[in-house]
């Protein structure tokens, strides 16, 4: 098992003006990633930016691993400029994946949280009731292919430019008989609301968290979150947690 490796960039294309997908082949013999896991990916060939960036498994298809990323700062900006054929370093797959759904499940994605959720519904396609929310239609990606992946899908935007006007919670509230396990990835505020929503209904809820990361392997202690069992590393003990374990 060799989770620190070099890979050639096989694709690095924008899916909208601020979001791109980067693709590479997994190394032979290396553990294949599971939905919910992530890679630490090199973003520049030099020493600035220095640290690798954490990106979730978006898709495993055509013998390639695909990571979807939003261009939000210096690191992702650099990443978006790396040409095809360039060789970059990766560490991964890292972290605890989503537990395998037993039967149908509710998948909730907010913003770029869709990257991780996409990895999940791609694997357990046709069992997912997807709720995918964003600020506006411009920030929703690949709605058609995502629709095809899931059994049912419900979109929401804050401004009503696509799907329901409102949050994913508003969308959830409109659907009856949602009594399956919940899987969610998105911004902190959304996750809090989702956890609340699930708790009220007595549903099991798994959430994928984000914290600033340096090492990705549990060594630097930069990415901690408080749990009932003390502080845990999001990179190693997560990023997926049972919502009941988290103390926010």
């Amino acid at each position, binding site marked *: 098992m060799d989770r*620190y490796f070099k890979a050639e960039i096989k694709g690095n294309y924008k899916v909208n003006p601020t979001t791109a997908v980067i693709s590479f082949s997994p190394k032979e013999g290396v553990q294949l990633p599971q939905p919910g896991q992530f890679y630490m990916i090199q973003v520049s060939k030099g020493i600035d*930016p*220095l*640290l690798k960036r954490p990106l979730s498994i978006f898709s495993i298809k055509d013998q390639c691993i695909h990571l979807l990323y939003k261009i939000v700062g210096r690191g992702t900006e650099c990443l978006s400029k790396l040409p095809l054929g360039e060789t970059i370093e990766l560490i991964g797959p890292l972290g605890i994946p989503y537990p395998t759904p037993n039967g149908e499940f509710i998948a909730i994605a907010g913003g770029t949280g869709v990257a991780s959720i996409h990895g999940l519904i791609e694997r357990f396609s046709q069992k997912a009731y997807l709720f995918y929310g964003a600020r506006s239609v411009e920030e929703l990606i690949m709605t058609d292919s995502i629709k095809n992946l899931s059994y049912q899908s419900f979109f929401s935007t804050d401004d009503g430019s696509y799907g329901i006007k409102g949050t994913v919670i508003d969308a959830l509230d409109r659907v009856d008989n949602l009594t399956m396990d919940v899987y969610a990835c998105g911004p902190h505020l959304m996750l809090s609301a989702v956890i609340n929503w699930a708790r009220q209904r007595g549903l099991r809820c798994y959430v994928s968290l984000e914290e600033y*990361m340096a090492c990705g*392997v549990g060594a630097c202690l930069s990415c*901690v979150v408080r749990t009932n069992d003390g502080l845990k590393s999001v990179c190693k003990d997560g990023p997926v947690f049972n919502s009941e374990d988290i103390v926010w």
Partner: protein
Amino acid sequence: MVNLSVNICGITLKNPVMTASGTFGYGEEYSEFVDLNKLGAIVVKGISLKPKEGNPTPRIYETPCGMLNAIGLQNVGVEEFISKKLPFLRQYDTPVIVNFFGDSIEEFVETANALNNADGVSALELNVSCPNKAAGWSNFGTDEVLMSKVIIAVRRVVTKPLIVKLSPNVSDIKRMSVISQECGADAISLINTITGMSIDIKKRRPVLANNTGGLSGPAIKPIAVRMVWEACQVVRIPVIGMGGIMTAQDAIEFFIVGARAVAIGTANFVNPRATLDVISGLESFLINEGIQDINSLIGTLKLHERTTCN
């Protein structure tokens, strides 16, 4: 074959490349990437008497060619370290150096005592220099009197080799180096991180929850090389150099100015095998330069004569 082995206050290291405290966990975290038997020494995360939770997140932030961290010395405490972390490390034939600290002189001494008695600990690294604690505390590393007191108190109970890790946030690193030696340190290590701050200009808040943090990485290397050079000029005890080392070339700068060993910190995050890459790069350099023994590289700096005109 060239000789890479060095001796640091009685401990023989296979090679002069260690991990820097706090950047390699308790060793286990990187054991998948690095054969720990190949390292010169493993320096573990700073340990205190009781477990510590450290600071709120965000605890790190990236800066030009470097990073700020304000972990806040989260650790499992000396008891759990000895019972849960040390047994794993004892499997390896590599010296384990334990970085430790306290909130008071009494805590320093008590922790030192426990570690001194622990099987499998080769040396202790006294951390007086972590800049992330509440006001007042950081004076251990920047106030000469406080620093002397803590070194002397710890020295009294420690029979194992004692390394003092110095803070770079001082006017005169030579003085702090000499004081460490005079107070009984068997070696000194430097530099720890330099206190820094970054601001989120939209929120008008520090990016780190702790407001300030310690700067590490390539950005600080020229400062680290200068300080290690200054320290080497004034002490007889071995100096362990660190700060921004990414490659063997970087490490060699530290050896040339006089470091007997080096530690790799931030580079581990970027390249989990950075330590091994430095070791093999060092070996190649010695071979190419026709140097048989790393010890004959150490301290070979030739200064330029000062020819300033006026």
